[in-house]
């Protein structure tokens, strides 16, 4: 059976949810007639027409805020940010309004909105287009943040996100859209992946590699190399959902392996791995046989230079080296 690419899986999820609920509308820059800057929405405008798949001008604060306002009236917008880096021009809407309006109204309002798009570096587009924004948004109570690493999770999490009644920000990855390593065998029937559940992507007994998004693929490659070349059995835990967070699966893995290396494309200061490290330290201190270590991006704005950027973000050799350094 042919594997489904990450991009195609997202497309299928969007298509199915457009069919399932007439309140679902896709809105964003180039999502309709252009078929999506990264082709995630390819064919949807042709199939569903102007009402359900809507092109916007380059105007993130305006159209993201518009989607949030519409969601208060029961519309279920799925908004594309061409890059999640562009969220920074819409932050007032995404944080002050989407995340806080429920609270400030004492629970009278909810915003069933999805904001999705790629949030990654590694594509040689310089610092402004390479932000990993998940830690910014996961810091905000009222928001949910997911970061799928495979086509199956992208499909299932996107469907859950659209059906969820809170704002869910879906962090995708341009490098995964067409990556055969992230492709999956999707079932013919509709399924969902629940938000708030991690998954062990590879079993192991010696060390837990804890990651989300594309770093899961990196961790899986590293685990293969660790086993093949060094006889180290690494377990790979895929967070999938960052907020809410499945702490149980993480703690269970650490209890089993007694070692944790966190692989996280975030910048190190208050990145996702900072939160995970704190949690393990607080709740599994006695399980640890070694300090928790992190492989994050090297702490500078994303460099352009293509071969050097590969070294700035977590890669297989950096993960292998870090695991070996645990002794």
């Amino acid at each position: 059976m042919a594997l489904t690419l990450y991009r195609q899986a997202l497309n299928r999820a969007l298509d199915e949810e457009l069919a399932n609920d007439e309140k679902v509308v896709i809105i964003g820059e180039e999502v309709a007639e252009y078929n999506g800057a990264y082709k995630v929405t390819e064919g949807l405008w042709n199939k569903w027409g102007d009402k359900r798949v809507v092109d916007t001008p380059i105007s993130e604060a305006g159209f993201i805020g518009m989607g949030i306002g519409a969601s208060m009236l029961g519309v279920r917008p799925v908004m594309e940010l061409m890059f999640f880096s562009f969220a920074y021009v819409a932050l007032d809407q995404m944080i002050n309004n989407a995340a806080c309006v429920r609270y400030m109204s004492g629970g009278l309002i909810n915003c069933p909105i999805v904001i999705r798009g790629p949030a990654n570096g590694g594509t040689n587009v310089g610092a402004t287009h390479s932000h990993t924004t998940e830690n910014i948004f996961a810091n905000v109570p009222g928001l949910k943040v997911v970061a799928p690493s495979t086509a199956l999770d992208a499909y299932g999490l996107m469907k859950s996100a659209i059906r969820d009644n809170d704002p869910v920000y879906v962090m995708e990855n341009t490098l995964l859209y067409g990556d055969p390593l992230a492709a999956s065998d999707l079932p013919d029937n509709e399924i969902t992946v629940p938000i708030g559940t991690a998954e062990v992507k590879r079993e192991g007994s010696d060390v837990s590699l804890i990651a989300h998004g594309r770093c899961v693929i990196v961790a899986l490659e590293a685990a293969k190399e660790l086993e093949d070349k060094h006889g180290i059995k690494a377990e790979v835990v895929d967070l999938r959902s960052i907020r809410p967070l499945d702490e149980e699966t993480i703690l269970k893995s650490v209890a089993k392996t007694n070692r944790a290396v966190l692989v996280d494309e975030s910048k190190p200061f208050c990145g996702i791995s900072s939160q995970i490290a704190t949690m393990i330290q607080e709740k599994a201190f006695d399980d640890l046989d070694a300090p928790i270590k992190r492989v994050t991006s090297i702490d500078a704005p994303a460099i352009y230079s293509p071969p050097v950027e590969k070294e700035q973000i977590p890669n297989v050799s950096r993960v292998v080296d870090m695991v070996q350094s645990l002794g």
Partner: protein
Amino acid sequence: MMLDKVDSYQFKEHSANADLSNEDKIELLRKMVRIRRFEEASLKYYNAGKMGGFLHLYIGQESIAVGTASLCGQNDHLITAYRDHGHALAVGMTMNECMAELFGKKTGCSKGKGGSMHFFAPDKNYWGGHGIVAGQTPLGLGLAYGLKYNGDKGAALCFMGDGAVNQGSYHESLNLAQLFELPVIYIIENNGYSMGTSQKRSSAFNNCLAQRADAYGIAWDVAKGNDIYEVRAKTKEAIDRAHNESQPTILEFDTYRYQGHSVADANSKKYRSPEEIDHYKENYDPISVWKKCLFSEGIIDEDSYKQMDTEAKKEAKDSVTFAEESPFPEISDITEDVYYEVDEGTESGKRGKHFFHN
């Protein structure tokens, strides 16, 4: 001051007003008086240290919220900025729930979680109460988008101050409003000052702020904000445009606030003269103007006005008692009303850790 003295009531016979009954006209006055007495009471107890944060008072501008809200039907929605008490009472929220919110009490309209700047009543089509200048302007656009998407014939009235017109999100909203032909009405309540900076020191414009609409091809109008007849007439035209043509409008109403930007505005009498404030109060006060109008039309007399005023003062005083006697939220309430799915106890809300303080 751009206002002319109101003496002609030239919009009395306008279609927006021709069918107003005497009772309707009295009700408009009652609403304005209630807003003023409510805010005077809130000022007193703010100064007595009973409230936290800011208190942005609407006193002097009541005719705009009351006049516009009085035209709203089942599918017309309102959203505003932080000077939101007047609109709240105008759409029918009670003094009790509003005063209790100011006191930070659990019985407040937002359970003590929003405060002065964040009053909401979605059941009355009132969507707040927003603290960031112009942050509500894309949301108002979204309400209009929702109306159009859902096939409802309605309008979204998005109120804002004159200080909001220079924010980017407002201009983005204007572009989208016309591009998508959305039934949104941006209502600029121009009280002359964005906090302590006068209009001429903050905005570049030709003739008036609303005229910037020309750049987007949006219909616009400017009017006196202290004459309810005129407010209703201009608003009705905009609502008709929204309902019948699904087109946006920018309306600018000239008005004036008597208090500072907020009560904490220590310079409120430095960036403008006390004479300027007194001049407005004496000549243009919206309650006085409307009262005089109803006197001249023989609809009310001094005695019935006094009775109305006494009732409003008592209602405000009672709301203070209600607020004072109400409980504060519990510590355990802090993490409620954050996530819908958690509050509702759904399967989605039970999966994974949502809160990280422990």
